[in-house]
């Protein structure tokens, strides 16, 4: 039986101490170090985004101001939104807090895929830099079409510079990073929880992150598809969003908001989780209504996929669609209300400690509620039609994003910083920061409700005097500068406290969850022995014997962890941590070079692609345990399943949304063709043959798996080569088909049918090509004797991908080929 969690003796070096030097940071796969890298990057971007906001408020301070030009103002509001969402809030919540505390709260030594975690960070950094490439002299400036980049403003004819190219490619790169992080954290939470930590014993932050990762996996593919279409329009001269070709820019809005509204909750749910962690210890009570808090997270996530249309009421979707989206948008207030009431009930009757973290958490409840209430207003179509694109919307989303998310992030910093660095943030400075923030935030954003009501539209760079807007704009700008000053206090506090702050004990707040059982900062391997969890609030129960729900627990700050218990030295010998790797950084470098190459330097695409490919092969064979069946690891996992297989299934689930968006676009555009070849050009006999070929390849794939699983390497490699060969025949058929179409005048630019067909079938073909390469690697490795029964998992996972490609083709063959004559299908 596993031992109870022990506080370690401090003779173990903490994660910041070893390995030393810059190389240690560049090659790290430790989730805590990666979290710190995210934090440093995101805090820098917070300063950048905040500076952009200050410039905008300087411009709007007085009427008829020409401090900034209209063009620069457009760049500033675009980059302020993009930066704050993709480069500040998400990386701080997911990259920093989730990365650092998921393993610590569930009793794991690291995330499920440590190298993938490092890769996510470096790709994130590449994406962040890429978005700002336009700053380089003579490259045309920053993106300037708004954070939601509405088509057809983003089309080449209206935005000819490379700034929108940077935005499109930058977001694609950032999307890759987020998707990989989401996948990693999802598998970690599902499968790596400590023994006894059932779902209903998880800290609420873990529930929030579990649901958030599901949202990421199922929302980002829609954005990817929208961006791919935009990329094609800009680089391949297609017309996915051009009305003149029969297309509609509304498609972009749908794809963007299918991602965009879940994205709001991708930012909000981690904030909910942070608040649910901060309030209980400072109220000295357990979280009120734990089950309902968990279920409401799930309900919010589910509903968030059915509300995207409320961002589009002004596009004229029709009364039925408007009414549907209006109702679902109002419904989402119910689970959100449950959360707010549960936080209030947790505070109610508690013995409160007004630390800075608690103050920010209470501030969150108030400000987020105000933002939520104005959100319900926008859910009403007639009201929204009056308010849309006015400053009321700016007020609303800043109450949600700043009053909600940033307040929660600040609460999280003050709460968890002692665990991250071993030193507490200065409370006096923190409280000054809180009270000034509370005033300045409300004074900046609440009057925007008035300005919106007075008719001030958003995104205007200046305005005429005497429209009744002068005073409030002046007032808001002064307070915005004060708000900016509070962040100066915050950064000073972070830097000063990290160097000279008060040393923190392992459990400075009398915490309830497992991370407080570890030293501050924790050692690289987190736990000497994997903890055995017997109840919710595992560490609290260990200290005091019971959760003490609704009652006031004995206040013994420090608890059991105050006395470090030295672990036997030999225990450490049994802890195997993943080795550092430089390949994630190389991979990101390759991706970055490919992105830059897309702008104008084609050779860089090839060089970047080669570097990326090299890093993939490097990672593939870096660990000797590649594809190895590991019964010990599976035995230790929460579900008794292999994390790698779980990860592949989660990825395939995400791919379903990707292909659904591609297929539905094809079907939407199929009947909007304005001349040229249409679906009748499709070659049914040829594709029927290809379908048989692909189905046969799936048979060979399972025969290969069966052979490898019985350790028959000869037949395993034969079947694998056979599968790859059939895949190549399929690709050959596709190349033949495409060539024939081009000769008949159907190019990707020809018409809507051509562009949607080539994109959908082409993406499937790319998947087949990746599968063929994967199969060849497996086949050669099996033939060389490197894959046998013990490593059959590598073949099984490759097989899952291959069969998925097969079933996607089953759908494509039916809907695109065999139903080619069906109108409006």
């Amino acid at each position, binding site marked *: 039986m596993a031992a109870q969690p022990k506080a370690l003796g401090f003779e173990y070096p903490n994660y910041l101490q070893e390995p030393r030097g810059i190389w240690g940071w560049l090659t790290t796969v430790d989730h805590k170090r990666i979290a710190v890298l995210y934090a440093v990057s995101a805090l820098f971007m917070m300063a950048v985004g905040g500076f952009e906001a200050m410039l905008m408020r300087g411009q709007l301070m007085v009427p008829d101001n020409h401090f900034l030009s209209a063009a620069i103002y457009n760049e500033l509001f675009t980059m302020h939104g993009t930066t704050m969402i993709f480069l500040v809030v998400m990386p701080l919540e997911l990259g920093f807090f989730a990365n650092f505390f998921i393993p610590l709260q569930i009793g794991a030594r690291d995330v499920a895929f440590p190298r993938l975690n490092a890769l996510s960070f470096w790709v994130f950094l590449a994406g962040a830099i890429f978005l700002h490439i336009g700053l380089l002299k003579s490259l045309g400036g920053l993106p300037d079409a708004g954070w939601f980049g509405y088509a057809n403003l983003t089309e080449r004819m209206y935005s000819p510079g490379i700034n929108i190219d940077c935005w499109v490619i930058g977001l694609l790169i950032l999307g890759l990073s987020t998707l990989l992080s989401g996948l990693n954290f999802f598998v970690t939470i599902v499968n790596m929880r400590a*023994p006894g930590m059932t779902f209903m014993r998880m800290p609420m932050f873990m529930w929030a992150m579990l649901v958030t990762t599901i949202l990421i996996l199922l929302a980002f593919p829609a954005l990817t598809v929208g961006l791919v279409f935009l990329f094609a329009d800009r680089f391949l001269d297609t017309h996915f969003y051009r009305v003149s070709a029969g297309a509609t820019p509304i498609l972009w809005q749908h794809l963007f908001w299918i991602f965009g509204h879940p994205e709001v909750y991708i930012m909000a749910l981690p904030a909910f989780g942070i608040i649910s962690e901060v309030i209980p210890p400072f109220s000295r009570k357990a979280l009120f209504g734990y089950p309902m808090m968990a279920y409401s997270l799930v309900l919010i996530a589910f509903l968030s996929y059915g509300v995207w*249309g409320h961002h589009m009421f002004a596009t004229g*979707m029709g009364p039925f669609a408007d009414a549907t989206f209006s109702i679902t948008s109002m419904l989402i207030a119910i689970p959100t209300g449950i959360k707010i009431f549960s936080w209030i009930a947790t505070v109610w009757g508690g013995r409160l400690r007004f630390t800075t973290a608690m103050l920010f958490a209470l501030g969150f409840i108030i400000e987020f509620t105000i933002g939520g209430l104005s959100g319900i207003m926008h859910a009403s179509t007639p009201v929204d039609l009056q308010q849309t694109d006015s400053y009321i919307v700016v007020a609303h989303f800043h109450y949600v994003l700043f009053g909600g998310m940033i307040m929660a992030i600040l609460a999280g910093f003050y709460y968890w910083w002692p665990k991250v660095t071993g030193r507490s943030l200065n409370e006096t400075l923190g409280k000054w920061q809180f009270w000034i923030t509370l005033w300045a935030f409300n004074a900046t954003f609440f009057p925007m409700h008035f300005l919106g009501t007075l008719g001030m539209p958003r995104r205007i760079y200046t305005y005429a005097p005497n429209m009744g807007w002068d005073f409030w704009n002046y007032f808001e700008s002064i307070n915005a500068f004060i708000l900016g000053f509070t962040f100066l206090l915050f950064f000073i506090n972070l830097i000063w406290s990290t160097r000279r702050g008060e040393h923190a004990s392992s459990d400075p707040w009398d915490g309830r969850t497992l991370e407080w059982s570890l030293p501050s900062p924790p050692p690289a391997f987190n736990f000497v022995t994997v903890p*055995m969890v017997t109840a919710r609030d595992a560490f609290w129960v260990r200290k005091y014997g019971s959760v003490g729900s609704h009652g006031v627990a004995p206040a013994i700050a420090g608890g059991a962890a105050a006395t470090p218990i030295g672990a036997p030295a030999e225990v450490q010998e049994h802890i195997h941590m993943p080795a550092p790797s430089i390949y994630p950084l190389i991979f990101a470098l390759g991706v970055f070079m490919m992105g830059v190459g897309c702008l104008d330097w084609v050779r860089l695409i090839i060089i970047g692609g080669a570097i990326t490919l090299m890093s993939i092969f490097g990672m593939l064979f870096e660990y000797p345990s590649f594809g190895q069946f590991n019964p010990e690891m599976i035995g230790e996992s929460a*579900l*008794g399943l292999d994390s790698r297989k779980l990860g592949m299934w989660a990825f395939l689930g995400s791919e379903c*949304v990707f292909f659904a968006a591609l297929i539905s676009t094809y079907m*939407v555009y199929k009947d909007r063709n304005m001349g040229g070849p249409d679906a009748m050009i499709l070659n049914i006999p040829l594709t*029927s043959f290809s379908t048989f070929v692909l189905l046969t390849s799936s048979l060979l794939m399972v025969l290969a798996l069966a052979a490898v699983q019985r350790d028959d390497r000869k037949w395993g490699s034969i079947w694998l080569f056979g599968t790859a060969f059939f895949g190549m025949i399929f690709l050959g058929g596709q190349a033949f088909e495409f060539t024939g179409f081009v000769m008949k005048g159907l190019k990707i630019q020809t018409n809507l049918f051509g562009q949607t067909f080539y994109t959908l079938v082409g993406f499937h073909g790319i998947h087949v090509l990746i599968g063929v390469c994967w199969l060849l690697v497996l086949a050669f490795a099996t033939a060389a004797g490197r894959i046998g029964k013990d490593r059959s998992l590598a073949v099984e996972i490759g097989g899952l991908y291959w069969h998925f490609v097969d079933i996607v083709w089953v759908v494509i063959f039916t809907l695109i080929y065999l139903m080619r004559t069906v109108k409006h299908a």
Partner: protein
Amino acid sequence: MSDYAIEHGHAGAREDPTDAHPGPVVYLVVAAILTVLTAAEITVFYVSALQPVLVPILLVLAVVKFAFVGMFYMHLYYDSKVFTIFFAAPLLLATLIALGLLLLFSHLAGVLSFTIP
């Protein structure tokens, strides 16, 4: 299930990945079924008399083929139900989103007309 997994209350831990997977015979039977179903799809496409019911027949055949590959080749029928949930839930969501988009654009194109009396 390993002693470790039993001791810690974990469900479903397997010692050997090949335990639950079917043998080549099952795979060959499934391949035969898939071949027949694909042949049926192509036949339906070319038979003029079946054009009025082309869409439902093709959809049913595609769903059955999809299910066979998922259940037997991807082992969802044999493996942990967790995998089925991981795949089926996103698939359902993706289908709903696709249907939602088709409905919204059908309305925009005037094919379907939703009116509230």
